[in-house]
């Protein structure tokens, strides 16, 4: 009934994700305004331009502006663009990978019709979600007595919409042109993440300002729309870019061969493709990857881990040290004068020291983010993934217990969490040694260890949800949602005494709470994180043991 056509089906397939995102952002906004209301914001006016650019706030900041900028303009924008990206990459390439494109195109509809329907659904979903995001802003502000009448909320909303459409269409276009969902997701994510951070970082470095203008994210908030109103030129660029992407998608999709249910090519496959290497490696690794469930799982996730590790090692690790060294002296000095609780909001630490810099830039968000991404994807895929691909039936036809399947899925998750932690450690160590920042290697190791442990907490949560429900979507949304919630809770706790008393509830307070980059390992914190993981893992065994295996996804 609701699946009247491609448009409606595409839009309805994803409604849950959008609803969760909209509700979360509204809750974050509520939390943010409630917290900022409690602190003296006069400090912001004295902030140096460079720092404000880093944290993304404008000149005449007030409670409402700060909350809306951080919660709506940053988290909301990332969530919306991320969902648009997911929807865009599934639109064409996803249907090909699932093998459903053939049957869709067996109907008397042209490729262009299918593509435009999907684009329509994408844009409509984004529009509805954006409106749904905008609606609660005024009631939330009014209920907390926060003044936002001077802010250009609608301008920011419109920018957010255009930005999400751009990233959605970028993913859709790459998918339509290549038929490769992995490529569509990967490339778009890379562009999104790099441009988001680029817009934050580059202004700190000489000549960096000019470079930000090539980054799409610049046209979202580079003009500070919440203060300055709509920047029509920027919107036109995002809109024009989107239109070009759509055109490229139509042309590309119409010209190429459709892919059947596709098969991922792993690095190992490419190596094996070379006849010379094949004979050598085929014997070693070729049979190794199917020698057990855990080795196969390791091989299944190698690409994801490779990307996450490379990003952590190079960008967040090695490059951060020299970048820190290139920040002008006077900027660093002003960092020193920032109020403590304000800095705590952005990950803590004294920004004028390399430890503080790395705490904020690398370990604050990206390092736990990378390890959580890996563990959650693996934890969610572990059991629910085999069920949705319907391969669990064959695994369970082998003489191995359900507990052993959980164990063999758990080992790779722990292994890769350690790998990501280790490469972060290696990257940061090297990054600090290049300009010789004099950081303690032992403390870096301690911080990376806690980073791995905090990742395992959320990975274990995903595993437990996966074991209990057999549904990957619940496991992923649940664990990522929990991670975002606790991260914000932790950040805001630093500003709000009421929340601070509850700080022990969030796993993140056991991660950077005792500033391991300066103070070294806190074994108590490590024990708490490990204990939480162990409890969740134990729960996974119990839940999986009791449940009916799902036959379909």
């Amino acid at each position, binding site marked *: 009934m609701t699946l009247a056509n491609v448009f409606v089906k595409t839009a309805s397939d994803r409604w849950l994700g959008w609803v969760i995102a909209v509700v979360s952002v509204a809750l974050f906004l509520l939390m943010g305004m409630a917290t900022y209301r409690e602190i003296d914001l006069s400090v912001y006016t004295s902030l140096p331009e460079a720092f404000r650019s880093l944290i993304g706030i404008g000149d005449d900041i007030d409670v409402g502006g700060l909350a809306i900028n951080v919660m709506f303009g940053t988290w909301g924008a990332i969530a919306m663009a991320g969902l648009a990206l997911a929807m865009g990459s599934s639109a064409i390439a996803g249907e090909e990978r699932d093998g459903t494109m053939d049957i869709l195109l067996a109907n008397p509809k042209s490729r262009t019709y299918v593509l435009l329907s999907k684009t329509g659904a994408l844009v409509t979903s984004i529009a509805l979600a954006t409106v749904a995001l905008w609606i609660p802003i005024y009631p939330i502000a009014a209920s907390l007595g926060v003044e936002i009448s001077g802010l250009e909320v609608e301008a920011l909303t419109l920018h957010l919409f255009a930005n999400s459409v751009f990233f959605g269409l970028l993913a859709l276009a790459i998918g339509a042109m290549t038929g490769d969902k992995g490529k569509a997701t990967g490339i778009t994510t890379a562009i999104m993440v790099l441009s988001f951070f680029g817009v934050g970082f580059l202004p700190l470095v000489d000549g960096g300002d000019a470079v930000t203008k090539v980054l799409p994210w610049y046209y979202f908030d580079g003009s500070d729309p919440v203060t300055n109103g709509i920047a029509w030129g920027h919107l036109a660029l995002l809109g024009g870019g989107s239109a070009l992407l759509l055109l490229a998608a139509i042309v590309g999709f119409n010209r190429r061969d459709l892919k*059947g*249910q*596709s*098969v*991922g*090519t*792993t690095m190992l*496959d490419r190596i094996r493709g070379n006849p010379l290497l094949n004979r050598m490696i085929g014997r070693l690794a*070729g*049979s190794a*990857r*199917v*020698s*057990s*469930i855990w080795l*196969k799982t390791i091989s299944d996730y190698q690409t994801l881990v490779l990307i996450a590790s490379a990003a952590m090692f190079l960008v967040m690790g090695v490059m951060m040290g020299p970048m820190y060294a290139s920040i002008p002296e006077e900027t660093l000095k002003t960092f020193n004068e920032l109020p403590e609780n304000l800095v705590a909001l952005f990950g803590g630490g004294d920004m004028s020291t390399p430890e503080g810099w790395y705490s904020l830039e690398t370990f604050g968000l990206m390092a736990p983010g990378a390890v959580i991404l890996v563990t959650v994807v693996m934890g969610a895929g572990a059991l629910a993934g085999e069920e949705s*691909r*319907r*391969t*669990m*039936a*064959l*695994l*369970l*036809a*082998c*003489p*191995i*217990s359900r507990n052993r399947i959980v164990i063999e899925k758990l080992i790779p998750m722990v292994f890769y969490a350690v790998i990501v932690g280790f490469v972060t450690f290696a990257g940061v160590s090297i990054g600090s040694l290049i300009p010789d920042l004099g950081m303690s290697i032992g403390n870096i190791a301690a911080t990376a260890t806690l980073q791995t442990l905090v990742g395992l907490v959320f990975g274990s949560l995903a595993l437990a949800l996966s074991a209990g429900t057999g549904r990957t979507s619940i496991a992923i949304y649940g664990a990522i949602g929990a991670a975002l919630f606790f991260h914000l809770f932790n950040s805001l706790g630093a500003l709000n005494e009421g929340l601070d008393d509850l700080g022990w509830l969030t796993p993140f307070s056991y991660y950077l709470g005792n500033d391991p980059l300066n103070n070294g390992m806190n074994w108590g914190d490590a024990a708490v994180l490990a204990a939480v993981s162990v409890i969740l893992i134990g729960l996974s065994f119990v839940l999986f043991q009791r449940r*009916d*295996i799902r*036959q379909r996804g």
Partner: protein
Amino acid sequence: MVAATHAQARPAIQTVGLTKYYGRHLGIEDVNLDVSEGEVFGFLGPNGAGKSTTIRTILDEIRPTAGSATILGLDTRAEAVEIRRHIGYIPGDLALYPNLTGMDTLQYFANMRGGVDWTYVDELADRLDSDLSRKVGDLSTGNRQKVGVIQAFMHHPDLLIMDEPTSGLDPLIQREFQKMVSEVAAEGRTVFLSSHTLSEVQRVADRVGIIRNGRLITVESVADLRSKSMREVEFVLDTEGEASVFESVEGVRNIVVAGNHVEMSFGGDMGELLTTVTERYGVADIKTTEADLEEIFLTYYHEDEGEEARS
């Protein structure tokens, strides 16, 4: 052959009052099955009848709402892992790992269970004309199914449980598959085969269970089913035939006499019919066509529907 001596000692599969509800939706109800060792048991029913639910329940993929089951004398809940050492399984709607080759796939499962005879794998691949060097994701449905079949047979399991195993296989390969099933039975091993196509089961099964709407309607030997069933009989006599002679035999219907050519539908004792005919006529030729199990299948369904309508 060792297994065959156990035939009477323990059933290969036994279910007692096996019931599975999905919430309020009925999967199967009060299914009582008894499959002996060494037999080929056909499990028949239309789509959605509860075949897969029964199989998934006895394999401990899903848990019964009521009742219990044993496989080779082992409890399907408590001794699930031990059971899996002795079985080969093809799930209905088979899914494999698309990025593994056929050989990778077999190695993967072989590593988990051990006891795989690789020369037998080669032989099976050869017989089924299966290219194991290609990625499963690049294979057609039928060729993917072959990998599933090899996977189930490769370790010489004592019991093969196959949920619609021939779906997607071409007739030539289906025949080869039937031969493989017969060989397994000849070695005293057991085969449990679900299907909605009767012709498939007809050729290989000793007994057949018919399931519909989650309930087991009947279990009969294929021979009994056949003897009960109608067949078309055609006589060519040395003189002109008379309908009355044939009508005196019980079970004769729809008789058509055309000179010395007599055709009828017959559902009685073939010996009696032959005696009666040869007493009166010289027989130049006889031709009988067995009624398809398809007809029997429909007969059972209609009976069942009739009962439901009456009650």
